[in-house]
């Protein structure tokens, strides 16, 4: 919020520079976004009196003026405003001046006559005529004749202020006002806040105004006041300048007062034309279905029963806390007004504002939350200003709040505070900090306890921890010495076994040359058109940032393929990438309970062949000690129908992933003319069954023997089945077996292939004889023959 320092000075004496003040505010919890010096906007522009006017020797359209700029001197200025007369007071931008739009002025010769600067109109000064009483305007601004000369124009415009842009945290709703900041400034600079309470009791009994609060849960307090003999006019310069300096456009005295009070006290105000309120009765109620209102912005808004409306006995007059209606608004003919100072529930205001798409300074302020005390202060300040300027007579006052609010009290000991903060404190420190923040503090008799009464505007203070925070933010965090823990439990920190396994998997993939990527968890629902899959049962966000980020992914393949594609199209032809992330699997849609989050490992590569890619998948399962079965599959439309494998865990047969070559039409869509491979593995399941190295096996001292056999089988027989057949024989001495070549073509019968198998035999206790080995080999050949009609080549 913008805080002009001169406005702050209405409530607290400022004894330090704006920079020092900013530092102190930051230290006590108010960040300063910017220190704005309004006087820097326009520079070197002064009021001047015209002493002499001569015609320009070379042009009839120009005049040459001699001007007096008091302490700055006497100068010659060339002007094209021929209406200027001797003794006129005008603003002049002297050599080196900076104008409102940032333009710089330099002395120069105009048709061979030197001009030491230029006269200014309203646009060069960024103001309007109404800023100067009695001013007129042709091309150059003519100021009232009693204007002092040599006066900095900023000062005349009231633009000599320094404005702090203060950001207020969400808990400190009370500080969203000049008075609120003034209270903090008083506390941190050891000043007293100037009295902001009315001296006289303003609770004048009402004669004509009735307030019916029918929604006391949405409107905790409603104060109405009647002012009659109202004179609608322009506000004085001070009020207009203050409003402008916080970014509010002045309108007329009554509207300006409501805005002024909002900024000064944080209390939104509204003024109704009293004669437009039938029976002078204000009804606070929820709107009825079908009701509508034309608001001050000229638009018609349809209200619903969740919205709070301020009505007379018949119709809505205003959308509570958001915007008033045109019908009851202040006009130049208004003679009596009803002022509103109310406390509306912030979530209701937020809801209404969002639903109508309508925001105002008032609604923004209400959304931050307002304490029950501000309504009095706001109303009092409004009435005081109206009376002071003689804009009307204050007549009546009605407060919907029946009883006094009893203030909160908190009891605590110094030890409580010291334990929270980890520092030691003196009684006097506790007392002085809390007093400076207008807490009233009493030591409880015969005990160590303090009892504080919390200021009524501090709704954020509820317990001892809050008191501790108040103390530490005022005495400063530097007072905390960082020493090692006084007490602590000795705990061992660690990652879980699964987390460590994920790290290990990453290490393996890094060693293989793959880099890790991190992509967004939400994707575009059109992923299913790239993946050509109809299984797009995804969780949708209610309020996505855009369509690209609108559904929670159920696969990593889409983002992976996109990433590979963008890298490929940047000129990388050999790519290995992996990602480990959750996918989100709903049980029912819309969600009733939390969905399953499955950790998935996606690996992808380009610029190699199927078996090179498969090798890394094999390696992973080998390292994780998981036995797998790899089978041909063709159920993924974005994959090559003959180069897709599904992976099952061999003991339970459970599906744990797939790998293979990406369908060429998908690659084409991604602008890739190279073979792409991808694997998606269900890490959640893998982590369940992965095991670590457990026991060491003795290595045989005896010689091993290898046998290579080549068999002819039907081309449909797959390698894995042949190996399984060998495995099922469970030969004790067979320590390793693998297929090392599959060949079809010349010298192999049509429809058949030759499979070369390497067998390795070894025994723990002796060197095996030829006979022992041959018997085993024959058994294998026999088994392969029975099951797959395999013929030894």
């Amino acid at each position, binding site marked *: 919020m913008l805080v002009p320092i001169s406005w702050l000075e209405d409530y607290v004496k400022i004894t330090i520079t704006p920079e020092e003040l900013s530092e102190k505010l930051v230290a006590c*919890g108010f*960040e300063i976004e910017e220190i704005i010096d309004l006087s820097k906007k326009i520079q070197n522009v002064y009021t001047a009196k015209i002493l002499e006017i001569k015609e320009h020797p070379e042009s009839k359209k120009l005049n040459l003026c001699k001007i007096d700029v008091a302490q700055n001197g006497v100068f010659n200025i060339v002007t094209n405003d021929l209406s200027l007369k001797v003794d006129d007071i005008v603003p002049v931008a002297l050599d080196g001046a900076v104008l409102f739009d940032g333009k710089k002025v330099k002395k120069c010769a105009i048709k061979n006559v030197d001009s030491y600067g230029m006269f200014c109109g309203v646009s060069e000064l960024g103001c309007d005529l109404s800023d100067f009483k009695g001013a007129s305007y042709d091309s150059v601004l003519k100021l009232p004749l009693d204007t002092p000369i040599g006066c900095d124009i900023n000062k005349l415009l009231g633009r000599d202020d320094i404005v702090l842009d203060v950001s207020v*945290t*969400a*808990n*400190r709703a009370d500080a969203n006002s000049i008075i609120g900041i003034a209270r903090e400034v008083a506390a941190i600079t050891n000043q007293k806040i100037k009295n902001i309470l009315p001296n006289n009791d303003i609770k004048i009994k009402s004669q004509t105004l009735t307030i019916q609060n029918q929604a006391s849960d949405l409107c905790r307090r409603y104060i109405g006041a009647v002012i009659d003999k109202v004179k609608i006019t322009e506000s004085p310069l001070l009020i207009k300048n203050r409003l402008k300096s916080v970014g509010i456009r002045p309108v007329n005295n009554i509207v300006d007062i409501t805005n002024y009070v909002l900024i000064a006290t944080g209390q939104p105000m509204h003024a109704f034309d009293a004669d437009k309120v039938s029976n002078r009765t204000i009804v606070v109620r929820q709107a009825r279905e079908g009701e509508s209102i034309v608001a001050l912005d000229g638009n018609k808004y349809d209200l619903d029963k969740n919205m709070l409306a301020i009505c007379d006995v018949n119709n809505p007059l205003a959308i509570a806390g958001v915007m008033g209606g045109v019908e009851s608004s202040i006009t130049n003919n208004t003679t009596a007004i009803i002022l509103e100072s109310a406390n509306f*529930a912030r*979530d209701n205001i*937020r809801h209404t504002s*969002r639903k109508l798409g309508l925001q105002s300074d008032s609604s923004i302020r209400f959304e*931050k939350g307002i304490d029950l005390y501000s309504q009095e202060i706001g109303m009092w300040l409004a009435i005081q200003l109206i009376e002071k300027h003689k804009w009307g007579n204050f007549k009546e006052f009605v407060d919907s709040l029946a009883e006094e609010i009893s203030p909160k009290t908190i009891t605590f000991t110094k030890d409580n505070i010291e*334990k*929270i*903060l*980890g520092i030691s404190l003196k009684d006097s420190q506790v007392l002085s900090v809390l007093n400076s923040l207008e807490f009233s503090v009493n030591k409880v008799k015969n005990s160590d306890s303090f009892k504080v009464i919390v200021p009524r505007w501090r709704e954020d203070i509820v317990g001892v*921890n809050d008191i501790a*925070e108040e103390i530490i933010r005022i005495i400063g*965090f530097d007072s*905390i*010495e960082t*020493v*090692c823990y*006084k*007490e*602590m*439990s*000795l*705990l*061992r*920190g*660690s*990652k*879980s076994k699964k*987390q460590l396994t994920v790290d290990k998997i990453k290490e393996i*993939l*890094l*060693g293989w*040359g*793959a*880099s*890790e*990527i991190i*992509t967004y*968890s*939400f994707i575009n629902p059109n992923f299913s058109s790239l993946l050509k899959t109809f299984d797009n049962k995804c969780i*949708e*966000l*209610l*309020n996505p*940032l855009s369509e690209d*980020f609108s559904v*929670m992914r159920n696969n990593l393949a889409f983002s992976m393929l996109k*990433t590979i594609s*963008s*890298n490929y199209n*940047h000129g990388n032809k050999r790519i290995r*990438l992996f990602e480990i992330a*959750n996918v989100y699997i709903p049980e029912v849609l819309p*969600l009733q309970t*939390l969905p399953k989050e499955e950790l998935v490992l996606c690996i992808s590569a380009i610029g190699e062949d199927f078996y090179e890619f498969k090798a890394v998948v094999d390696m992973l399962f080998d390292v994780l000690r998981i036995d797998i079965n790899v089978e041909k599959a063709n159920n993924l439309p974005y994959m090559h129908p003959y180069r897709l494998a599904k992976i099952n865990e061999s003991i339970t047969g459970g599906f744990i992933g797939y790998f293979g070559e990406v369908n060429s039409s998908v690659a084409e869509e991604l602008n890739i003319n190279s073979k792409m491979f991808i694997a998606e593995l269900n890490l959640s399941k893998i982590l369940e069954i992965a095991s670590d190295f457990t026991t060491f096996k003795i290595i045989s001292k005896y010689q091993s023997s290898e046998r290579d056999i080549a068999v002819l089988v039907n081309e449909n027989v797959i390698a894995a089945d042949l190996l399984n057949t060998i495995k099922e024989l469970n030969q004790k001495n067979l320590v390793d077996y693998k297929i090392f070549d599959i060949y079809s073509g010349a010298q192999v019968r049509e429809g058949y292939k030759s499979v070369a198998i390497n067998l390795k035999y070894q025994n723990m206790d002796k060197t095996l004889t030829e006979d022992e080995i041959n018997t085993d080999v024959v058994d294998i050949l026999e088994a392969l023959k029975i099951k797959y009609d395999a013929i030894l080549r």
Partner: protein
Amino acid sequence: MINNIAEIKDDILMSIKDIESVEQLQTIRVKYLGRSGILTNLLKDLKNVNPQDRPLYGKLLNDTQRFIEQNIDTVMEKLLSRDKLLREKSESIDVSFSKITAKRGALHPLTKVKNEIINIFIGLGFSVEEGPEIEYTKYNFELLNIAADHPARAFADSFYITNDIMLRTQTSGIQARVMEKQTPPIKIVCPGKVYRPDADATHSPMFQQIEGLYVDKSVSLADLKYTLELFAKEFFDKDTKVRFRPSYFPFTEPSVEVDLSCAMCHGKGCFLCKNTGWLELLGAGVVNPIVLENCGIDSTVYSGYAFGIGIERATMVKYGIPDMRLLFENDIRMLEQFK
């Protein structure tokens, strides 16, 4: 006979003197020592020699045989080592040329920094806990003292799936889950992806956080400051300073923003810290007793501190990355810088 032998010796020395190749030398060996070589034949003839001359004659032949072998061997060795040198010379390659490149992949910089942060806290006794990214509002908000009308719950500040299921906006939900099921002491760090509807150079709609929580008997704000100072010195360097500024989070009271002295300029002021000398890197505070009570922990016995670090921000600061969006482009040219 003796003359004959002397002749043989001379012949041998002559014939191997200028010999060129191993093969020629083999031929000579065969010529003299082969099955029907000259010397072999002489040895066979020994049986025809007069018995009293045999010892002398035999010795002479044996000496000659050794003489021949030794000379052939010497030359053979020379030839072999010459041949080896020739072969090696012919095998000369340009060792400066890298024909094949073996590449190690790179961890994503965010993972690298996340691991680094986690490891520092593991060293300080924190364990790593994870939790669901799609979360009930109860764990993301209610238990953490963020009431139903709190602005942070607005549509503009959180992604929703249903009225009470959302994408977590912070990993604090994990803390609540752990506190519900575990009795203190609790000392955990909770890394994970979190989601907020912001997207620009310094905000990403998905980002990663690490939150820490320590609940025990008599944990104070001073303990928090000590811990974070240790962290900062490890993560940046030992001269890093820590500054607390008051702030507000509903789940901590008192709450602080934690500034670290700028890693680049050490407080002198530079572009990274926008000339302030300080980097805003963490939010922290003393756990609000309301939160402890919400999670079933007796706040009259236990207290705690909590802190949260944005991993993206820490990564950008640590490596001088100017735009957060770069971290999610996954351009290999960027990733490989972090191998």
